[in-house]
């Protein structure tokens, strides 16, 4: 296979057709370049899955250990804001996939519009997250010297109070997991601003749109992380 591709690239070079500026010289053809980028992106996402996986594992272990406090602490989160943010991210995943489609079919205004919508939805997510964080600061639910979680009843056990130091572990995990997720969102918005600039300059064509596709993979991955964070942090201990 590599041999035949080398021959192919030589043929192309001989015929003077290798003028695609997006094709780097160490790749035989655009398809090979795209496949290499795709494989690299997926391997990067695999490392990201293991990175978040360690935090999910820590969350599950501490939830097993301090079940009552995790349940009490989980109920203090704003369910409506969390659910809204889930919907916002799902909508942004749609605009991303539409942007990839537009880039592949040379539909400029559709591409630019969906990239802008994605960036706006990203900021909406971060804004709602900021409102939630602000509420946590006001209620002194942020781990640290000013942390307060006194006389909160354990769900299902009237008269029994949650241990504040155990509840603090829940909020520590909450802030680390959602904070790292928010950091990924900020990086994602940065990537999409760059994609928007490139799209504005007309760099993406049906033959070359790999950056849009790879940026899209990253965005969808961040969406999937939230799809798991939302039920784990907000939902599973909420039932009466």
């Amino acid at each position, binding site marked *: 296979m590599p041999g035949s591709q080398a021959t192919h690239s030589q043929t192309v070079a001989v015929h003077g057709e290798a003028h695609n500026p997006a094709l780097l010289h160490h790749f035989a053809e655009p398809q090979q370049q795209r496949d290499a980028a795709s494989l690299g992106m997926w391997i990067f996402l695999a490392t990201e899955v293991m990175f978040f996986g360690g935090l999910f594992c820590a969350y599950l272990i501490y939830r097993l250990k301090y079940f009552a406090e995790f349940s009490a602490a989980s109920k203090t989160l704003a369910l409506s804001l969390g659910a809204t943010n889930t919907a916002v991210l799902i909508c942004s*995943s749609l605009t991303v996939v539409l942007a990839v489609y537009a880039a592949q079919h040379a539909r400029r205004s559709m591409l630019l519009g969906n990239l802008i919508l994605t960036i706006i939805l990203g900021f909406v997510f971060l804004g709602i997250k900021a409102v939630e964080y602000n509420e946590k600061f006001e209620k002194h639910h942020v781990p640290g010297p000013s942390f307060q979680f006194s006389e909160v009843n354990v769900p299902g056990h009237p008269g029994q109070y949650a241990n504040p130091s155990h509840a603090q572990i829940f909020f520590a995990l909450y802030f680390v997991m959602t904070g790292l997720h928010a950091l990924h969102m900020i990086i994602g918005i940065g990537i999409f601003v760059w994609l928007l600039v490139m799209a504005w300059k007309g760099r993406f064509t049906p033959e070359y749109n790999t950056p849009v596709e790879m940026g899209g993979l990253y965005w*969808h991955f961040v969406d999937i992380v939230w799809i798991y964070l939302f039920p*784990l942090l907000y939902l599973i201990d909420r039932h009466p």
Partner: protein
Amino acid sequence: MSEHSSSPLKTYVTIWLTLLAGTALTVYASTVDLGHFNAAVALTIASCKALLVALFFMHIRGASEKLVKLVVIATVFFLLILLALSMADYATRAWS
């Protein structure tokens, strides 16, 4: 690349609506007392949503390269090793 679907746009909108419906369903399910099954139901719905995003929005379904599919399967496999073996350890420590 993949020409099997006549209108991918229609598929994208269908998946989007399904994901929104899944979100509504999981929020509703959290208010019903299912005992220990609340967590199982929520995580099952989340996994279905994640699968839809991966298959249709990340185009694993139409991916031409088997290598990408191998990377995805290996990722899920190692994540499950991490979670399942750790939980098996901590969940059985009290047995002695």
